[in-house]
C-alpha cells in the first residue's frame, strides 16, 4: 500500500491511477451511526458528493445495472418477462439499482413520454434507515454524504425497511442482512466514481461534488426549458435534508409519474414517534415505575396479615366446616395431590 492517500473523486469518468493508493474514507469520517448517540465527532469534513441522474439523457440501456452487478459481485436471479422492460421486477438484495419504466401521456398535448428512472438508494442527508436501525453502527453516514450498510453489524431485523421513505433496502432471505446501493463507497474511498456512472454511455449519470452537480443540473434544466420542458427541475427533496443522489426531471412538477418517485419524501411521523417519544417517554416511565416501587417499599409499610385476620379466618372455617371436619383437616394432608 502506498503512502499516498487517494484524493476524493470529483468525477466518475477519469481512469484509475496506476499507483496503489490508501483509502480516503475511514471511521473518522462517520458523522452519523445507527443506535450510537455518543458518536465521536468526525476528524474532518469531506466535500459533499452527489450522483446526478439526468433522466432526459437516459436511454434505458441498463449498462448501469450491469456495472453495478459486476462491481458489487452480486448474483440476481434470472428473470422472466412480465410485459415490461423492467428486469428484475424489483430491487432485490442482489440488485441495488433498477431502471423503472413508465409510459406517460401528457394530459394537455396527448404526447407519449417514456419515462425511465434509475431507482436506488438516494443517500439522504437525514436517512430514515439509519434512524430506524437498532444495531449500533450497522448503518453509517460519512461526511461526504454516503449512507452505507455495515453488513457485519446488521442483525437482519428489517427496521430500515420501515424507516426508508423510498422503499430501498432489501433483505437477503439467505444471509439475513440488508443491502442497497453503497454509492460505491469502496470506489469513492480510492478516488473513483460509482460504477454505474462510469458505465453510463450517455453520461446521464454523472458524479462529483454536490455543488458541481447542482451547477450542472441547472445548466441541464435551462437547456430543457428551451426545449419545451418548462417544468423541468432538480429533485433534491428538502424533506429528507436533500439527497446525495439527485435527478434532473424533465416533467419536474410530477415526480410521481417517474414510477412513484415521492413528491415530498420525509421520514414517516410514525417512525419518528417510535424512535422519539415512545423510546424516551417509555423508558422514563419504566424507570420511574421501578424507582417508585423501590421508594414505596422503603418508605411505606407493607400490607401484612394480622393476628386478627388469622383468628377470623379460623373462626370462619370452623363455623362452616364444623368441629369434626376441621379436626380431620388439621394438618396438610393432600400435599402433591392438587
Amino acid at each position: 500500500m502506498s503512502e499516498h492517500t487517494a484524493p476524493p473523486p470529483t468525477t466518475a469518468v477519469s481512469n484509475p491511477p496506476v499507483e496503489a493508493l490508501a483509502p480516503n474514507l475511514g471511521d473518522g469520517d462517520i458523522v452519523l451511526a445507527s443506535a450510537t448517540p455518543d458518536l465521536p465527532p468526525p476528524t474532518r469534513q469531506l466535500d459533499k458528493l452527489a450522483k446526478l441522474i439526468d433522466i432526459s439523457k437516459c436511454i434505458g440501456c441498463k449498462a448501469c445495472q450491469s456495472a453495478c452487478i459486476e462491481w458489487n459481485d452480486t448474483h440476481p436471479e434470472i428473470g422472466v418477462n412480465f410485459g415490461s422492460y423492467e428486469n428484475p421486477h424489483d430491487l432485490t438484495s442482489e440488485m441495488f439499482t433498477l431502471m423503472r419504466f413508465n409510459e406517460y401521456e401528457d394530459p394537455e398535448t396527448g404526447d407519449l413520454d417514456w419515462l425511465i428512472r434509475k431507482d436506488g438508494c438516494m443517500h439522504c442527508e437525514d436517512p430514515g434507515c439509519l434512524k430506524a436501525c437498532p444495531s449500533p453502527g450497522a448503518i453509517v453516514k460519512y461526511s461526504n454524504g454516503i449512507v452505507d450498510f455495515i453488513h457485519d453489524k446488521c442483525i437482519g431485523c428489517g427496521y430500515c425497511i420501515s424507516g426508508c421513505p423510498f422503499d430501498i433496502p432489501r433483505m437477503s432471505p439467505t444471509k439475513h442482512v440488508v443491502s442497497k446501493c453503497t454509492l460505491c463507497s469502496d470506489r469513492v474511498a480510492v478516488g473513483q466514481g460509482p460504477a454505474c456512472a462510469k458505465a453510463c454511455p450517455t453520461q446521464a449519470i454523472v458524479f462529483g461534488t454536490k455543488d458541481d452537480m447542482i451547477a450542472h443540473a441547472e445548466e441541464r434544466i435551462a437547456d430543457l426549458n428551451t426545449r419545451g420542458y418548462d417544468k423541468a427541475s432538480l429533485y433534491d427533496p428538502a424533506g429528507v435534508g436533500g439527497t446525495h443522489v439527485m435527478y434532473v426531471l424533465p416533467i419536474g412538477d410530477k415526480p410521481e409519474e417517474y414510477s412513484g418517485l415521492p413528491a415530498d419524501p420525509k421520514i414517516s411521523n410514525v417512525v419518528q414517534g417510535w424512535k422519539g417519544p415512545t423510546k424516551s417517554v417509555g423508558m422514563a416511565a419504566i424507570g420511574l415505575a421501578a424507582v417508585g416501587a423501590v421508594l414505596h417499599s422503603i418508605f411505606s409499610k407493607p400490607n401484612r396479615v394480622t393476628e386478627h385476620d388469622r383468628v377470623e379466618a379460623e373462626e370462619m372455617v370452623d363455623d362452616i366446616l364444623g368441629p369434626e371436619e376441621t379436626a380431620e383437616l388439621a394438618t396438610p394432608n393432600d400435599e402433591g395431590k392438587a
Partner: protein
Amino acid sequence: MAKREFSESTDRIVATEPVEVRRYATHTRINHWFTAALIVLLILSGFALFWPPLFFLTGLFGGGQNARFLHPIFGVVACFSFLLLFLQLWKLNIMRREDLVWARNIRELLDGQEENLPELGKYNLGQKFVFWGMFWLLLAMVISGVMIWQQFFPDLVSIPVRRWAVLVHSISAVLSVLIIIVHVYAAIWTRGTISAMTRGTVTGGWAWRHHRKWLREVARRQDTPPAE
C-alpha cells in the same frame, strides 16, 4: 356441594390449624412460571432492540442476529403459554360490581385501612387489571409482531402498515413492562402473596383479609353434608 362462583375446582382448604388454602394447582404454577421466564427473555431481547444502551443484552442470546431470530420465537411460545393460563383464569377475572367499590376505596387500601373495602372473590380489581392488561397487550404484540417478522413474513403487510405495527409493538411492550412492575411489586407489598405461586397455598389470614368471599366459598364447598 355448594355452587362454585368465586373459586376454582382445585382450590381447597388443606389445613385448619392454622388454616392453609390451596390457591393454584401445580400445573397452573408451572404454566405461570414458564410464561414468566419467556416474558423475561422477551423483555431482555426486545428492549435490546428498542433502546440502544441495552443493545449489549443481545450478547445473552449469542449476538444481534440470534437475538433477532429468537425474540419472535419466544413470543409465539409465550403467547401459547399465556393462552393456557388465560383459559384457566379468565372466568374469575370477569369484572364485578364490588370491584368498582374496591377501586373507589383504593386510597384506603394503600394506607392500610381495609375495613371499608368490599369482600372479594378470588381476584381484586388490581389483579384483574394485570390479567386483562397482559391479555390485550400480548394480543397486540403477537399481531403486530407477526407483521414485522421479517424472516418469515417479509411481505405480509405494506411498509406504511409495518411502521404502525412497529409503533404499536413498542408501545405495547412498554405498557406491559409497566404492568409487570405493578404485578411483581403488588405481590411483594402484599405480604403472604408469593407463596400462592411458589408452594401453591396461602394462609387463612391472607385469604380472609384479601379474598374473603373466595375463602368462604372454598370452605363451604368442602363442607360435607351430615350423613342421613
